């Protein structure tokens, strides 16, 4: 076999791996959206669920959505970063296999074992089920998360290895020298490498801390006399959770950097501000997590003040670099809109817009009356549903060759955008009216928010269904198609 033939086979294998990721993500996304829609319909009192079923679905929805946000973000990152650094398709596929094994355990814990401690498994709740779920069901959930974490750890380590082998270090991969004016901007790493370096740094640390608290919780399940400090556990869980979910956006945003220029015919400018933003974002994603603990008065006050200030600071790179970059890239570029370009552009907008309610909730005086209300799912659905997942759907449409401006794609796009906007605004409005999050049963006064939110959820689900089904229908063709941007 010639060198060219081996390279071509590897290319097809890599493309197939990315498409397999996206197919899994598309199917799981639809399933998890259905779980979410079911919960909203129950809160709206249009259907009736047993609270045990509601909270089990809530747990599955949270874990599943965080999982596929990570998995689909990883697909975007891996697809683009492998143009610049050597990465292993085997490790990439191992991550998918471990994810699926973990998902089977988690779904089994929920649907068979009735596990319902929320995706955040806040210590010591897994061990205090009130006779709803067994110790083994809780253990299955925690081991499932561990398996998924191991897969992501391997993937990030492999990408970090590739970046170090080409650029000489993670600092160089992030563009630290360019950020501080110590090297020419033109010699800096491409956006996909900078973003992948950041994701590797934060997620390797986040997953290690997450694994520690998962193991602690597992030991506590079988040996209750092994007690752990609840505040320390909360710190570990929220550090891991915050880092992991934020990394999903920082991986998915590579789709904006790579796909918009294909259609706008303008390269994404990487300058000093761009690299500085990525360096700053790396530090802030690692240090901002105390904003999840603002109502834990036992925390050191300085840490909570730091959480507030870093929350505000962390909006600057998103708004003034990524959002601004997307706007200037598209501005009077002659771009002819299609579904792929539209979705990644909406993704940049959704991320930037979602930053506003997030920053406000990270303000201690506001958090005192907004924490754990529906304001929280309101803001994170804005930058996940309309941000990260819109970017992923744009990537799916782009790589699947279904970006046409005709057909069902545009219908799916508009349903997703309009439905998503209604859905998140209903959450935010409910949060401002003090409606608590994570309640299986709502008061009559809260029903209007739930009903409007349910209508938005139906529309957003229909939009996602059209986009994902189109992708799946063309999967065979996409498998053998040449990547237009490669």
């Amino acid at each position, binding site marked *: 076999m010639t060198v060219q033939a081996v390279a071509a086979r590897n290319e097809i294998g890599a493309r197939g791996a990315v498409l397999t990721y996206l197919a899994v993500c598309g199917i799981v996304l639809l399933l998890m959206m259905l779980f979410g829609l079911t919960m909203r319909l129950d809160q709206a009192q249009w259907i009736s669920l047993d*609270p045990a079923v509601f*909270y089990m679905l809530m747990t599955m929805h949270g874990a599943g959505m965080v999982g596929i946000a990570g998995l689909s973000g990883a697909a975007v990152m891996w697809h683009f970063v492998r143009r610049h650094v050597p990465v292993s398709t085997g490790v990439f596929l191992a991550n998918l296999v471990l994810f699926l094994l973990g998902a089977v355990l988690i779904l089994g814990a929920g649907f068979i074992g009735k596990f319902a401690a*929320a995706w955040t498994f*806040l210590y*010591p*709740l897994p061990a205090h089920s*009130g006779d*709803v779920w067994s110790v083994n069901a809780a253990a299955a959930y925690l081991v499932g998360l561990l398996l998924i974490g191991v897969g992501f750890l391997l993937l990030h380590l492999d990408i970090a290895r590739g970046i170090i082998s080409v650029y000489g270090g993670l600092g160089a991969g992030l563009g630290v020298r360019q950020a501080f004016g110590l090297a020419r901007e033109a010699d800096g790493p491409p956006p996909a490498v900078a973003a992948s370096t950041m994701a590797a740094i934060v997620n390797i640390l986040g997953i290690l801390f997450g694994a520690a608290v998962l193991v602690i919780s597992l030991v506590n399940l079988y040996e209750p006399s092994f007690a752990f*400090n*609840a*505040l320390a556990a*909360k710190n570990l869980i929220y550090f891991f959770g915050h880092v992991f979910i934020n990394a999903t956006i920082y991986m998915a945003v590579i789709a904006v950097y790579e796909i918009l220029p294909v259609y*706008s015919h303008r390269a994404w400018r990487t300058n000093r501000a761009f690299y500085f933003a990525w360096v700053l974002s790396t530090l802030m994603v690692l240090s901002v997590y105390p904003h999840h603990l603002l*109502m*834990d*008065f*036992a925390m050191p*006050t300085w840490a*909570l003040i730091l959480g*507030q200030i870093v929350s*505000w600071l962390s*909006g*600057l790179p998103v708004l*003034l670099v990524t959002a*601004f970059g997307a*706007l*200037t890239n*598209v*501005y*009077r*570029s*002659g*771009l*002819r809109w299609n579904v792929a370009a539209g979705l990644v*552009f909406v993704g*940049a*907008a959704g991320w*930037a*817009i979602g930053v*506003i*309610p997030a920053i*406000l909730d990270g*303000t*201690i*005086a*506001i958090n*005192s*009356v907004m*924490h*754990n209300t529906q304001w929280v799912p309101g803001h994170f659905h804005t930058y996940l549903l309309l941000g990260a997942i819109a970017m992923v759907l744009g990537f799916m449409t782009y790589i699947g060759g279904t970006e046409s401006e005709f057909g069902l794609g545009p219908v799916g796009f508009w349903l997703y955008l309009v439905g998503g906007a209604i859905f998140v605004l209903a959450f*935010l409005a409910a949060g*401002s*009216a*003090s409606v*608590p999050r*994570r*309640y299986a*049963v709502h*008061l009559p*006064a809260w029903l209007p928010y739930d009903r409007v939110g349910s209508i938005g959820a139906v529309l957003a689900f229909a939009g996602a269904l059209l986009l994902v089904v189109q992708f799946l229908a063309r999967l065979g063709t996409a498998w053998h198609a040449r990547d237009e941007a490669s």
Partner: protein
Amino acid sequence: MIQDVVWGGSIVLMGALALVFAWVAAGADMALADYRPAIASAYRLRHWLFALALLVLIGANWRTLGELPYLSSLAPLPAAEIHPADAVGEQWAWTVTPNKFVVGQTAEFRVTTKDVNHGFGLYDPSMRIVAQTQAMPGYTNVLRYTFIEPGVYRVLCLEYCGLAHHDMKTEITVTAQ
């Protein structure tokens, strides 16, 4: 209430940002003959936006960090003006002792839990949150609140704690002076 200000401000800012994206998207099909002057203007605008954002950031943090709800940050009160109350959570009930106050009294809730994490959310008679803190195993969080209107206040659990989380409620009665 603060929630209304936050909601209104968010809608204005989110709407403004959405309009900017929509405006750029709507004009994207027109191609500039020379992109360089436009990008130079945009980058100048970004400097101004950065300065404005820094001003807002400093101002907002300066203003709000002076209003922290933590005991260590509150002005000291004479012991006679503080009305202590124990608030203990457990799956799935709150016990608040005492649970009767008079308008103008400053309650000092000492919040803890016997089992898992709970959230002590204090709702006023119109069912809006006026204060909250977490109830954590092994810790007692102190929350002060001065009642300003009479009526039935409710304590709801604001940290997911299992099957009957939504039913974990109790009442506090506040009478006029």
